[in-house]
């Protein structure tokens, strides 16, 4: 699937799609952190990979030198159309201020703490229904039968689109994020997704509802409605950013519990530990890496970064930096000091973090309530996706 030569020099020729990196990046980050600590590669363009907490957060805050106009970890290697449907990309994630500021304020109330509470009962019912579907079998794929099925349906609910199309949405999101080095898959997915949302926008215009899409169409900025391309971009962003990411966090957490019986037992016996445990699992298995583009030549930590170079915002590695986290490579469910940046840092902090946290907590609560004892199915393979979003894609468990 991945067309990439194996890596031998991680400091000067890294590749986040390398099979070794996808399967187990932790040792590679540890080695880079003590020797490099900002790796470089010329694969898919000149790209830097910081591994220390201090560097990743400093770059996230320096929006003057590091722009979000290009956030894809795997660059698009085709010709851009002359008149793109989304000239601003997917704001606010792919925008700098001032566009970032006001588009982000449009989305944030949909993911506020109070609003997210109102999605909890629906999420719990969804999780419970999924478990009903396989609990009698004594086995399930915790990634594809469970984790993968949850966030996409919650996002469909928020966007006001049909949950029956969940598999189609999931396919598009995976093609954009996980199979981004497959040009045709990526192009077709973006086209399918845009055509779908163009049609949905037309429907909402004729018959507005109380969903996010309708609300965006109703909103006026400086006395004028928002441009269609911005509504489309924001809708596509909510779908793309809210599916793979949270599903990966749920899957990784279930993988951890399947492979660490003492932690699983503790979470079953001591439900009080859940809120700290959710943060610790987010820290240890942070799914998301975003990119930034260098705006002007700048030397950072001795690295000669050139305008146009890409930086991979390695929040997952920052979260395992022993300078900041004691026993960083160990999962300590009740870790008290946990300044993790799984949702990023600075002005682009994940707008859906409240939602993701709620989904992860509810998914684990329902699973552990119904299936307190489970383990990996012996002799069956666990597979991982990497690149922009890391998490298990096949996770066969028995119970």
């Amino acid at each position: 699937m991945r067309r990439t030569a194996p890596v031998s020099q991680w400091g000067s020729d890294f590749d986040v799609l390398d099979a070794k990196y996808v399967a187990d990046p932790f040792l590679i980050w540890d080695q880079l952190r003590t020797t490099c600590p900002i790796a470089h590669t010329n694969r898919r363009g000149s790209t830097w990979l910081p591994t220390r907490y201090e560097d990743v957060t400093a770059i996230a805050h320096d929006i003057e030198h590091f722009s979000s106009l290009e956030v894809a970890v795997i660059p698009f290697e085709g010709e851009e159309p002359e008149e793109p449907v989304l000239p601003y990309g997917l704001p606010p994630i792919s925008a700098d201020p001032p566009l970032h500021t006001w588009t982000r304020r449009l989305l944030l109330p949909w993911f506020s703490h109070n609003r997210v509470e109102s999605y909890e009962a629906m999420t719990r019912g969804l999780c419970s229904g999924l478990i009903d579907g396989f609990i009698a079998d004594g086995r399930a794929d915790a990634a594809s039968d469970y984790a993968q099925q949850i966030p996409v349906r919650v996002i469909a609910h928020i966007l006001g689109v049909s949950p029956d199309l969940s598999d189609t949405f999931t396919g598009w999101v995976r093609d954009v994020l996980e199979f981004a080095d497959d040009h045709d898959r990526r192009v077709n997915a973006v086209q399918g997704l845009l055509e779908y949302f163009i049609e949905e926008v037309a429907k909402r215009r004729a018959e507005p509802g109380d969903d996010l899409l309708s609300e965006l169409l109703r909103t006026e900025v400086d006395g004028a409605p928002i441009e269609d391309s911005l509504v489309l971009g924001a809708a596509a962003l909510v779908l793309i950013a809210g599916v793979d990411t949270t599903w990966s966090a749920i899957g990784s957490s279930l993988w951890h519990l399947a492979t660490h019986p003492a932690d699983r037992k503790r979470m079953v016996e001591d439900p009080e530990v859940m809120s700290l445990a959710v943060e610790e699992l987010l820290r240890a298995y942070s799914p998301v890496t975003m990119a930034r583009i260098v705006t002007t030549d700048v030397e950072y930590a001795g690295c000669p970064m050139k305008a146009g170079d890409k930086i991979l915002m390695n929040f997952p590695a920052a979260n395992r930096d022993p300078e900041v986290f004691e026993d960083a490579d160990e999962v300590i469910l009740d870790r008290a000091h946990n300044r993790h940046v799984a949702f990023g840092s600075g002005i682009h902090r994940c707008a859906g973090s409240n939602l993701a946290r709620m989904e992860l907590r509810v998914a684990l609560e329902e699973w552990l309530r119904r299936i307190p004892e489970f383990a990996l199915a012996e002799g069956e393979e666990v597979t991982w996706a990497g690149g922009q979003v890391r998490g298990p894609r096949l996770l066969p468990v028995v119970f």
Partner: protein
Amino acid sequence: MKIRVDPDKCQGHARCYGLAPELFEVDDYGLSTVVGDGSVPPELEDRARLAIANCPEFAIEEV
């Protein structure tokens, strides 16, 4: 003990609210502010320190 949230640093992670909802409020945009004038009752001082130690933006301080 008295605490404050620096509004220029807070990015809405809501970690403080999750750890000590008695001491913080979050608005629709995620921004945190202290409840009242930021005075912390003695029985909540440990949680206030936890909130300070978990903020990813170093936005909470004891004043």
